[in-house]
């Protein structure tokens, strides 16, 4: 254990920053007790060769189910880490799982997904007194997370779904999900979990709306491309509103100036991914023609992070660990503000383990620039 922080008791965690895939896998596999492990989550940095990773995982972990995805960064026991291979082993004593691979997100087929998910659920007999949840890992460039998560909410009304979109560092080139020891693209993995631990899901961001409104006047919702904002070329208008030059638009700028959609007092972030040569803006969440959005501005990150992570069980206990899906744009902002160390400190203190995503799913909604967390609470004292 690093820095004197106690390790989670109900999950085994290992990480490796080795450049070589097989070495990295070998490093992390030592933490796995194949017999006692129900399943393993692996978050892969985009520096590793995926085929190698897959092969190594199959060799090292054998029959243990491995799920995961590529990431835009990792949150390890050191906090924010880059290029680390993170492995989490969930013991059989506390966990059970069933998984569905959803292939072919484009074109989106509601019925196929529904059928597959229902079948899997029917086969996954519930255990009395254990809690159910589902984790979703999606191809972060599929642009189908909104539909997917909405569908899953419909199909699994009683199971909360938490998810993160697979990332590709900051390249935004290719993203993969891992299931059955193989990496898939244009796919999503739905992992249904049953645990005897108490579970709390949550999410938060640190943005408030400004008064500035943006109306999408021409867009391609399928591609999440906005061509015109307020009747003017999107990128230019965004630059004007944000108050910087068109040429200065960068992911950092995007990160600090998200666009919010408002509904009944709640604001949902629509993050800007990129500005194209045609002055169009590509978004990382669903947008639509004629939507009125608000320009958002960020608040203080540290406090909001600390507050957001302060989860307590019914008995007032701190979580044993938190599985975190942290948007890459948040990381960018943190790094820009050089708050990495305090943020990492906070992560370590809260025992947050997870990865940086290209999008987050929670409560049937696909979001951006949000931290989605699943807190696992240990049972009453005395039980290991």
């Amino acid at each position, binding site marked *: 254990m690093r820095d004197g922080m106690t390790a989670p008791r109900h999950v085994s965690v290992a990480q490796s920053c080795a450049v070589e895939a097989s070495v990295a896998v070998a490093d992390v596999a030592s933490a796995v007790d194949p017999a006692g492990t129900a399943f393993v989550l692996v978050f892969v940095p985009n520096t590793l060769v995926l085929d190698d990773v897959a092969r190594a995982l199959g060799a090292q972990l054998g029959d243990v189910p491995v799920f995961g995805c590529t990431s835009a960064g990792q949150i390890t026991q050191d906090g924010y880490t880059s290029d680390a291979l993170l492995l989490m082993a969930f013991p059989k004593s506390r966990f059970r799982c069933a998984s569905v691979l959803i292939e072919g997100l484009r074109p989106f087929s509601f019925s196929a997904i529904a059928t597959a998910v229902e079948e899997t659920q029917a086969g996954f007999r519930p255990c009395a007194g254990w809690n159910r949840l589902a984790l979703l890992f999606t191809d972060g460039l599929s*642009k189908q997370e909104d539909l997917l998560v909405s569908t899953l909410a419909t199909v699994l009304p009683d199971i909360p779904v938490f998810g993160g979109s697979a990332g590709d560092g900051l390249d935004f080139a290719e993203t993969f999900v891992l299931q059955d020891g193989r990496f898939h693209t244009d796919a999503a993995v739905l992992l249904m979990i049953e645990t005897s631990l108490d579970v709390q899901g949550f999410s938060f961001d640190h943005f408030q709306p400004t008064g500035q409104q943006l109306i999408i006047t021409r867009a391609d919702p399928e591609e999440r491309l906005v061509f015109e904002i307020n009747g003017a070329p999107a990128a230019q208008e965004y630059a004007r509103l944000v108050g910087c030059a068109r040429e200065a638009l960068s992911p950092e700028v995007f990160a600090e100036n998200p666009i919010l959609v408002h509904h009944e007092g709640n604001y949902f972030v629509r993050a800007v991914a990129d500005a194209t040569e045609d002055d169009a803006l590509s978004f990382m969440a669903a947008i639509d023609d004629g939507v009125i959005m608000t320009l958002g501005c960020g608040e203080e990150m540290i406090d909001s992070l600390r507050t957001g992570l302060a989860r307590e069980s019914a008995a007032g206990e701190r979580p044993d660990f938190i599985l975190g899906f942290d948007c890459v744009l948040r990381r960018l902002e943190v790094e820009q503000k050089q708050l990495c160390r305090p943020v990492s400190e906070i992560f370590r203190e809260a025992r947050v383990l997870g990865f940086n995503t290209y999008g987050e799913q929670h409560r049937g909604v696909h979001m951006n620039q949000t931290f989605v967390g699943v807190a696992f609470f240990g049972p009453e004292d005395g039980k290991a």
Partner: protein
Amino acid sequence: MNLIDPDEPTDVRIARQERIIAALMRRADRRDEMNLSAYGAFQSAIELQAQVAAKTRDLEEVATELETVRGDRARTQRNLHDALSVMQEGFALFTDGHLNVCNQLFRTVLPDIAGEIVAGLTLDGYFDLMVRSRHLVSTDHKIHHPASQLKKTPDGAMAMSLMIELAGDIWYQLGLQRTSPDNVVLLLTEVTPIVRQNRSEKKTLIDQQADYLQAVFETMTSGVCTFSPQGTVMMQNRQFRQLLGVPLAELQPGTTLERLLAFMQAHGLVRDDAFLEIANWQQQLTQGGWLRRVRHGRGRMLDVQVNGLADGGFLVEVKDVTLESRATELLENRVLERTAELTRANERLTEQFEEKARVEEELRLAKERAEAAVSSKTRFLAAASHDLLQPINAAKLLISTLQEAAQGSHLLPMVDRLHRAFTSTEQLLHALLDISRLSSSDPDAVTPTEVDLGALMEGVFADQLPLSEFREVRLDVVPCRVVVRSDPVYLHRSVQNLVVNAIQYTEAGGRVLLGARRRGSKVVLEVRDTGIGIDHVDQKRIFEEFARAENAVFGTGMGLGLSVVDRTCRHLGHALSLRSAPGRGSVFSIELERAGNGTARADPATRGQGKADTAFDHTVLVIENDAEVLFATRQRLERWGARVLGVPSTPEACCTLDETGVVPDIVLADYHLDGDDTGLAAVAALRDGTGHHLPAILITADRSELLRRMAAREDVSVISKPVKLSRLRPLIDWAIQRHRGGGQGG
């Protein structure tokens, strides 16, 4: 904030605005469509989120409330249990007819059913249990169908309340109360101490009462005996035994009435078979009581009163009424006697009454006869006076004429004597007639009027002067001017009688004084003489008819004069008194009422006589139906020097005047002429016939006021029979003179 870059030119801005508007409108259109796009899903999802959040909040609120309510309810329940357990009464709450909650006390009141008193027990079920319990001895009401009875009572009212007696002299009061439409409360309160205390108090009271009653019983003056509803003796007092003569042994409690009656009959204590018959007793009792008086064997009378008592028994009261009954008998006897007496008295009275009626009848008859006699007497008198007076009138006139003719002849003394004798006869006759008239009860006998007393006295004086001169007695009259109320004729006669008496009973040389004096409102007329007087013994007697004083000289006066005076005064209410002393004289006085201011009607006949020396050469028409009187009158008048025409009736008078054409100076008419003819009619006819208002004098024996008035109305003077010649001549003179004087009235 500005949607459009203000730096852009206007047209650009306008274009941009247009695009904004268009975009918004497109969106608005799409809103209602089923949106299967990613954004649509997103929107649905966030919509759902918001709803779920709201519902979750509500659920949390409800959950909190529910927790609170549960907590409250639990608290309440605990409080209720605590309260119930400390209550000293048994408490049970039945909700919707089933036992909801009760406390320990309630359960264990009847220990043998305690186990069955569980939640859900119905009200009727509880009562059934109670009734079946061995511990229950009695209740004061029958408990049945309490549920239905409860329905009838309004909320809050005590539906039922009954006393329950449990074994061991334990008492509870069970109260049922409906507190709300669903809830009924039963309360069991132990009242054992109260009941026991009540009982002992009652017992003490009853004992006291019993003692008191016994004392009262013993001291009562009537004999009292109470019987139970079965007819046996319960209580009796000494007086009862004594009065009936029944020993105590026969009146022990439990002795029946029959036995008692049998005893009384056997010992002959009561002799009244109906009384002794028990059936009668029963019958009378049902009729509500009996009061009977029986004779006790030992001579007492007893009142026996029997009355029913509330509990079905009866009370016999015996009173000794011997004295009473005796007194009653006595009273009754007395009453009978009195009644008999009264009856007899009544009979006597009836007889007397009848007798009296008879007597009255006889009296009435007698009165009628008397009245008849009187009226016949009056008629007789009237007739007699007229018939008697006519010849006397004639005789007087003739004697007067004879006297004048005998002047200077040797026959004169004889004629004088004749005159005097005749005068006496005349006076006697007048007196007789007066007495007769005065002694009758004819109210017209006297006619009070106003009389000039002075003139009357002068007249009497003038008339009696010759007599007084003859007897050589000095006669004086005191003049007076006073008017009195009396009958002029009778008064005149009375005064005349007194004066005559006075003259006759006075010796020669004596004095007679006639006078009157006032005495207050009265006038006293006095006739004083210095005569022989009348002694005390005779003063009473002399007023009687024909009585004479002893010292009267025989042959003087008449015996009737004073009688007339006496009767006159009695009739007229004048007080007549006499003062006299033998040898000294007498005073006769008559008290008269003074009359008003009216002038006395002067009786022309009483005016002072005129002398006979004036010429009397008048023509006189005399109407007189009596031939003798007519002759006598003619003779007299012709002697005086008048020329006389004499006729017997009015028609003849008229004829004569018509034939002769003579208008007489005066008419002298007798009132009573033949048939219906009257003197007044004659005068009227003559006046008519001659056309002159002839002076006239009516001659009549009728002295009634009525006639005088009639005459006065006709302006005819009246002179009464028998005619006083001394008055006649001056009257004729006066009448003629007056007529000639031109004066109409008289």
